């Protein structure tokens, strides 16, 4: 056994999320590490640049809490179900303060993460061409993207997007071992590229398993331990988002947030109740059960649809 990286979310955020850091927030509309998101808010981290292929309402909470100065992304919304109103207030009214946004497309963000993960300096793509995404930039200036004529002679221009290597990333998986080997299944979303791109990653997981358990299905490993700085045990750590095989999305709870966040006061009340007012994830879950009842909590739990097994023998 190598040195254990297991610690609490409080310790991991205190130790690895620095004010002013570029932070990759893993998960694509699912399996978001809400446990870290809420801890970052409670620890009042400041001046963060947050990046992700696409953001849902979790980043709205970070923006409302004043943690975010800059965003590097393609999307901030909740699909057809509503708007991120803290994001809108920040952009439209400068509340709680103005944020800068460097805007790409979803594929462009993924290409940038992939480049970062593989040590490729930039990637030429066909997306973004001719669009107003190329008209505007923020802190990156003319290093946001470059138009270049194909040196291989197709006669067309491509958009070169630069590699992205965030200082730190966080994400949530079904299981990890104490050395940080992370396994994930179901839809993979932005993984593995977004996490592999980060200099270091902190991970929350439904279950901490042994190194031997990891070795029983090594194709499920989405991130090797050497990239991981901290492993946090956090059952239901993605709630109200879903985590394949563990629990379903809690859409009523997300809708409740979206509705209450329509006003600053409503947002504050929600956050006081569910973030600032609880010490950690265990208290949050207890509060959930106290508020909505054990049955509603248990209803979230995934049914059993077990995968088949394969033979790894030699």
């Amino acid at each position, binding site marked *: 056994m190598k040195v254990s990286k297991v610690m609490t979310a409080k310790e991991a955020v205190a130790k690895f999320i620095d004010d002013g850091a570029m932070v990759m927030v893993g998960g694509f509309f699912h399996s978001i590490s809400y446990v870290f998101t809420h801890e970052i808010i409670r620890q009042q981290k400041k001046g963060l640049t947050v990046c992700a292929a696409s953001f849902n309402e979790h980043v709205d909470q970070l923006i409302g809490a004043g943690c975010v100065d800059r965003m590097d992304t393609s999307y901030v919304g909740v699909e057809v179900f509503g708007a991120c109103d803290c994001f809108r207030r920040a952009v439209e009214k400068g509340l709680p303060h103005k944020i800068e946004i460097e805007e790409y497309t979803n594929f462009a963000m993924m290409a940038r993460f992939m480049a970062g993960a593989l040590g490729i300096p930039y990637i030429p793509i066909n997306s973004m061409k001719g669009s107003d995404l190329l008209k505007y930039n923020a802190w990156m200036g003319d290093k946001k993207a470059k138009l270049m004529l194909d040196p291989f002679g197709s006669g067309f221009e491509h958009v070169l997007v630069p590699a992205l290597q965030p200082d730190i990333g966080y994400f949530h998986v079904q299981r990890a071992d104490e050395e940080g080997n992370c396994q994930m299944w179901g839809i993979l*979303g932005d993984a593995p590229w977004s996490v592999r791109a980060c200099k270091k990653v902190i991970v929350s997981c439904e279950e901490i398993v042994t190194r031997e358990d990891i070795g029983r299905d090594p194709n499920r490993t989405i991130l090797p331990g050497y990239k991981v700085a901290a492993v946090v045990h956090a059952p239901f750590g993605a709630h109200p988002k879903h985590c394949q095989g563990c629990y379903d999305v809690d859409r009523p709870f997300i809708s409740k947030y979206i509705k209450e966040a329509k006003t600053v006061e409503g947002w504050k009340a929600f956050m006081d109740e569910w973030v600032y007012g609880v010490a950690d994830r265990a208290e949050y879950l207890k509060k959930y059960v106290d508020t909505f009842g054990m049955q509603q909590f248990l209803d979230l739990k*995934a049914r059993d649809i077990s995968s088949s097994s394969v033979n790894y023998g030699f």
Partner: protein
Amino acid sequence: MTHKYTDFTLQEMMTVAASREIKDGELVIVGTGLPLLAAFLAQKTSAPNLIALYESGAYDCKPLATPSSVVDSVLVPGSAMAGGLMEGLGSVHAGDIDVGFLGGAQIDKHGNLNTHVIGDYHAPKVRFPGSGGSNDIGSSCKRTIVMMLHQKQRFPEKVDFNTTPGFFNGGKEREKYGFLGGGPSVVISTLGILRFDAETREMYLASYHPGVTVLQIKENTGWDLKIAGDVHETERPDPELLRILRDECDPTGIFLKKE
């Protein structure tokens, strides 16, 4: 509750119209909401060999319930492949996907779409989510189907922000970029079906939905909308299609409002 399969909402009309745009055997990248229902409907009726994929990386799904998002866990069991965005959007960027669905806050005369801002980019009146995968889908899918709420401010002559280029200023302008995708082939609005002139690439009205007039559509469009010579009422949904749509595609009414 008894459903009458001869009455239908405009949402249902749009979904049925969109499903008709998909050919059997096509690869279709599907988003949340009506596009998802349109693909399901097509799969259950006219296009049984359609393969639906999602930008999240889920491919050829056989969901046991209506997915509420493109990453819904229900998409996974029974699907032929669960990958990530690089599998989903990678197939798009490679030009492998026949049809993509798009929508937005604004669409203009030449099919350019805006999902960014109303007003000035730096001091917007309203801020929308941004591109997400829209620009990728619009740039590289062989063709796109756009679904829109038909209101004057949503159909301006020129979008405030060109998130996902259609035909730019029309004519052959799109061709100089070397996109793998051909651009929008149809706009299915709450009022009618609009297509693009093969030469000028200007949007024109092909048909108006039952109960809607051409005048009403012109009044809800921000430029002097051209009307097809053979403009006609949009073909009404077959009652059997409506039954499948309501009872099989969205039985719990996630996307289709129940009366």
